[in-house]
């Protein structure tokens, strides 16, 4: 997709013959791969085997852990305490939030909203929480809120100090940064099984899984904020004889505070997007009904808790976001307003009863399902056609190729492809990941997942690039697109599954549509930003030389935005993978399904855990392929669900 001239591959001057060679090399390699495929088709394939010895071995290990959970010192003195502590924290939040009752909780939310951003945010909080109550989601929402807050609290308590250390010390950063990189490309499903192994199922392990997912933005953004504190101010503080701790407490932390608050915002967003997934490991809350309804393709029943999560997300997002930009100056007014709202809410609790009144609830499941049924009935011609076209025209042929080609050929092809785009090192790592997947006895399922990811990523990247180019070239188009993309980006990731299920029912295509909706905004945004970053003077020079708009795009803007385009591709692919995996919940099968099955069925545990590892390897492979020659493209890259 990147319009890089072929001769960019060779920075050193070479003879014309060598240049021609370099230009034709990729084509030659492609022809060679095709030829090898034709010759070796159906040899060295690795068909799926549910009884692979590795899976049994993992099962045995699980059994050993289960037997020794209460005797081994590692569990007795460490893991079990962690589990108890985290469970205690969750219970604490749960009890406190329940005790507040709905009027009290609405009051607290309104107070926090008022404190952070004035009456507007307070009103948004009240409206959203009232909406939750009216939808009949109050109790489940309290559980979800308690779990989210526990996980966010833990993430911040652990993440901010690590972030501060990483921001101050390059050697800590060198250790932390690659770990975070891997955590970010790791599909969420992959660590559910290990967490369950250590902490069993329940709120504790759900909190821990959520925390693992939510902690990277806390660390990363804190480190960035601390690193970026103006050195002059730090120097001024030191020149007055401040100790390191004084400078940290009075200069660095306060100056980094707004950015760190944005980190909190990101952490919360990440935690909320885990809600449906942790329901798989027996977390109470909104996710439970959502997952159950998804499994039964009951869009209405899934949408309602989905709306609940989105409402919670909106409240927490608005509060933290405005806390990050506001500079509260008149403290007295703010705090007294806060106190009034909280006290009013809490005082109303005994009056209005802590449970949300049932007579205020409304049922919207049926009307939604009526609409969905109508769509299914009337649009089937269109949706069915799309579904079948993609399935028979793209997915099946590609899956055929990937599963009938010898594994070594695919590995070599990936090596060559990654080498060409991102250099030899990246190519070797990507190929290494594939070899490891082969060794994990999950080759066929991995290729199935890869098939969906490739198709979804190609569609997503093409569409995102078109939207991005459109937005970069037309102010009008950008003005329309921006708010839509912004809104899309604040939604928890799974919420994209719902419209996809409504339109296309269960299946691989639904996962593709969901990842498309999920990743397109980010791709479009990155492409647009990259194109806009091309300096105006360069464009002016090109125009004054008589370039047409088209020439400008292909010969100036796209080549100059190469690294942004690669980054967009990278993000698009990694996000697509994340969504395709979650797509297992709506019947996309393959590795994601292995993980889900492993959690719910004892005898499939081994396969599930190994599938999680395979997902990580797949993620690393896809990331490396598109990483670009310059290594890590963007340290601030958006957290991937």
């Amino acid at each position, binding site marked *: 997709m990147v319009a890089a001239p072929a001769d960019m591959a060779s920075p050193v001057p070479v003879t014309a013959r060598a240049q021609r060679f370099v230009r034709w090399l990729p084509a030659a390699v492609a022809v060679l791969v095709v030829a090898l495929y034709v010759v070796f088709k159906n040899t060295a394939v690795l068909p799926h085997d549910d009884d692979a010895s590795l899976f049994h071995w993992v099962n045995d290990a699980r059994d050993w852990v289960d037997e020794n959970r209460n005797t081994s010192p590692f569990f007795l003195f460490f893991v079990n305490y962690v589990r108890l502590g985290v469970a205690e924290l969750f219970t604490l939040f749960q009890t406190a939030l329940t005790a507040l009752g709905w009027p009290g909780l609405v009051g607290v939310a309104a107070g926090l909203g008022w404190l952070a951003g004035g009456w507007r945010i307070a009103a948004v909080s009240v409206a959203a929480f009232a909406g939750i109550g009216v939808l009949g989601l109050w109790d489940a929402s309290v559980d979800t809120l308690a779990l989210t807050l526990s996980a966010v609290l833990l993430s911040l308590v652990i993440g901010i100090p690590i972030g501060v250390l990483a921001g101050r010390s390059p050697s800590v950063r060198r250790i932390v940064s690659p770990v975070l990189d891997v955590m970010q490309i790791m599909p969420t499903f992959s660590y559910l099984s290990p967490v369950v192994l250590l902490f069993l199922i329940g709120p504790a392990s759900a909190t821990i899984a959520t925390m693992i997912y939510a902690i990277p933005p806390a660390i990363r953004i804190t480190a960035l904020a601390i690193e970026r504190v103006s050195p002059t101010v730090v120097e*001024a503080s030191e020149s*007055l*004889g401040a100790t390191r701790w*004084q400078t940290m407490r*009075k200069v660095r932390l*306060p*100056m980094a505070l707004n950015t760190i608050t944005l980190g909190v915002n990101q952490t919360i967003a990440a935690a909320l997007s885990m809600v449906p997934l942790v329901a798989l490991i027996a977390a109470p809350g909104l996710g439970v009904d959502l997952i159950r309804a998804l499994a039964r393709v009951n869009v209405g029943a899934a949408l309602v808790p989905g709306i609940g999560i989105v409402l919670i997300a909106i409240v927490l997002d608005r509060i933290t976001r405005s806390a990050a930009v506001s500079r509260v100056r008149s403290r007295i007014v703010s705090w007294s307003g806060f106190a009034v709202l909280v006290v009013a809410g809490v005082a109303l609790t005994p009056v209005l009863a802590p449970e949300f009144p049932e007579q205020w609830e409304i049922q919207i499941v049926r009307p939604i399902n009526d609409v969905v049924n109508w769509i299914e009935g009337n649009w089937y011609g269109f949706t069915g056609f799309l579904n079948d076209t993609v399935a028979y025209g793209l997915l099946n042929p590609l899956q055929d190729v990937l599963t009938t080609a010898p594994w070594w050929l695919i590995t070599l092809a990936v090596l060559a492809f990654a080498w060409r785009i991102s250099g030899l090192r990246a190519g070797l790592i990507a190929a290494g990941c594939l070899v490891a997947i082969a060794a994990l006895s999950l080759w066929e399922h991995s290729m199935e997942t890869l098939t969906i990811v490739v198709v979804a990523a190609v569609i997503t990247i093409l569409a995102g690039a078109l939207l991005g180019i459109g937005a970069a070239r037309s102010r009008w188009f950008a003005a329309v697109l921006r708010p839509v993309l912004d809104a899309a980006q604040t939604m928890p990731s799974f919420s994209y599954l719902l419209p996809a299920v409504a339109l296309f029912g269960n299946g691989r295509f639904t996962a593709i549509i969901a990842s498309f909706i999920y990743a397109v905004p980010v791709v479009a945004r990155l492409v647009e930003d990259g194109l806009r970053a091309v300096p105006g003077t360069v464009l002016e020079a090109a125009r004054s030389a008589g370039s047409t708009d088209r020439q400008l795009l292909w010969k100036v803007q796209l080549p100059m935005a190469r690294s942004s385009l690669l980054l967009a591709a990278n993000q698009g692919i990694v996000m697509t993978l994340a969504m395709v995996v979650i797509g297992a919940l709506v019947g996309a099968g393959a590795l994601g399904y292995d993980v889900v099955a492993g959690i719910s069925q004892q005898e499939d545990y081994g396969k599930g855990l190994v599938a999680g590892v395979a997902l990580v390897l797949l993620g690393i492979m896809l990331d490396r392929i598109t990483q670009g020659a310059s290594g890590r493209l963007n340290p601030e890259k958006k957290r991937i669900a």
Partner: protein
Amino acid sequence: MGTAAIEVRGLWKIFGPKADRIIGSPDAELDSAALRAKTGCTAAVRDVSFEVRPGEVFVVMGLSGSGKSTLVRCLTRLIEPTGGDIAIGGEDVRGMSAAQLRELRRHRVSMVFQHFGLLPHRRVLDNVAYGLEIQGVAKAVRHEKARAILSLVGLEGHEDSYPDQLSGGMQQRVGLARALAVDPEVLLFDEPFSALDPLIRRDMQAEVVRLHREVGKTMVFITHDLSEALKLGERIAIMRNGSIVQVGTPEELVGAPADDYVADFVRDVPKSHVLSLRWISRQPDTDEPLDGPELPADTVIHDAIPAAMASARPIRVVADGELVGVVDRVDLLGAVRLGEAGGDPEHAALAGSTAEEA
């Protein structure tokens, strides 16, 4: 000299790996580019020595990259020197422990920065009180002190503003107040006014002159602006590539530049405003009358013009009650004309020869 406020001997600062091995080795003689090419190190300050007298305004001047900021930061070890000795008020700074160094910075030396370095999340009052706060001074006391200092720098009524609500000049007054609030013996200024526009810069320079008169602190003032240096400096050190090429009064620099670099620097200065009669006085001719008006030798040429206009006779230039020479209208006119023409090659030569005669 034990009475110096600041005494610097053989100070080096080399940035880069294994910097301490370079001092004393033949590499130390290399020029910057060669040193960087050979060792990857940058010598920002090379073998600098000078003294600052108590109560003096000592200006360090040089082009961008000549090592001024590094030098001034080495004085309180905000940048750790690579070699050499520093004494402030007779105490060896390089030998200080971290705690002693903090004490030095808290009570005796404070600094004003080019980009102000104010804390954006604190009110002006709390910015000024910051130095006292980290010393552990009680809130009421430090606020009272900060208010007094704010009125000294002309910022009454802005105590509760935030830095971003003030203009650049006012922000730097806050920076100045913050440095003054701890009542230090020495104030260090690193190009404090170069981020300000010219009119405000002139105000602030006047402010520093006034403060110096009122509080009489020792000041080390970094600038790359010659007119600022001449206006403020009792003595000026000119830096080039990390070394000091000349230290002297404004008059010495303008009248007797040590080399072409310094001469180039001072070439556009109107000489008649800086040089004194001492620099142009000559032995009286045998038949010259010696009953003209008498002026001290350190009278600036420009200020001698009225006297010369008032009398047809040559001016008698005296120092310590003794006649050191005479100056007539022609001499004065020549000096003024040369000064204004500035920059012609003859002129540098003439300045050089005058210096030799003196």
